[in-house]
């Protein structure tokens, strides 16, 4: 798994080259998220991600803690990914945006 990142507005926009954040990739994801440069809040674009399992969800939470005090925003969750966040109520923990564009308007 590779993350790419670029400044975008007030965020550091992070995109994945992988379609899953799962047991096979959670550790790599966590390590790459921890190594993100700068001090801007992070916006993780999940548009290409089709599936996040419990390991992936745990890795996203771990990344959020590691990034603090920077905030981790999530954008463009597909219905299956959104369902995992909703069932576990972890959608209450992250600012979640319909799209990257919408995140900018939300500030």
């Amino acid at each position, binding site marked *: 798994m590779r993350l790419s990142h670029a400044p975008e507005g007030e965020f550091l926009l992070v995109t994945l080259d992988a379609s899953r954040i799962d*047991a096979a990739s959670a550790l790599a994801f966590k390590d790459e998220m921890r190594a993100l440069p700068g001090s801007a809040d992070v916006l993780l674009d999940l548009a290409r991600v089709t*599936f996040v*399992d*419990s390991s992936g969800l745990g890795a996203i939470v771990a990344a959020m803690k590691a990034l603090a005090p920077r905030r981790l925003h999530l954008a463009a969750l597909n219905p*299956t990914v959104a369902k*995992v966040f909703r*069932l576990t*109520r972890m959608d209450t923990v992250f600012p979640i945006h319909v799209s990257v564009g919408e995140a900018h308007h939300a500030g």
Partner: protein
Amino acid sequence: MLAEAVPFPRNGGHGSAGADFFSLQFEATPPETRLALAKAVMQLGLWDLPEDVAASTEIALAEACNNIAEHAYAGRDPGPVWLGLLLQSTKIIVTLSDRGWPLSPDLVQAPVTAPDPSALPEGGFGWFLIKSLAQDLRIHRMNGTNHLTFSIPRTKPAS
């Protein structure tokens, strides 16, 4: 390595499928599990299920497979997993078998509470997700093999 499917008829070493069933054998490693899940999800796609039903099946199946990889074969070489999907008129029946450590029947009986989001949990979601989505959850062990069975309703429950 993906090996031949059991117990259904064999089909070129890549599992087998029919109009209303699908089966596959794989090793309980994260990469093999990921590949097996991809094939199972393709089958769910062929069945043209409502998106929410396919999503529930994928989530519960993935968590059950992860449990086998992480716990059933913990501390020993990853062993085989047999995955079966059966399409019925009102539900999808999922069966998973492995030859790992015995599963506690308590997993079925005991209520599973969701991790508290405000505590920022990094784990403990797996069984909660399975129990949230699966019905008719059963575990039994026979001849050194764990069998986990559950079903996902094809109609969306009122919520």
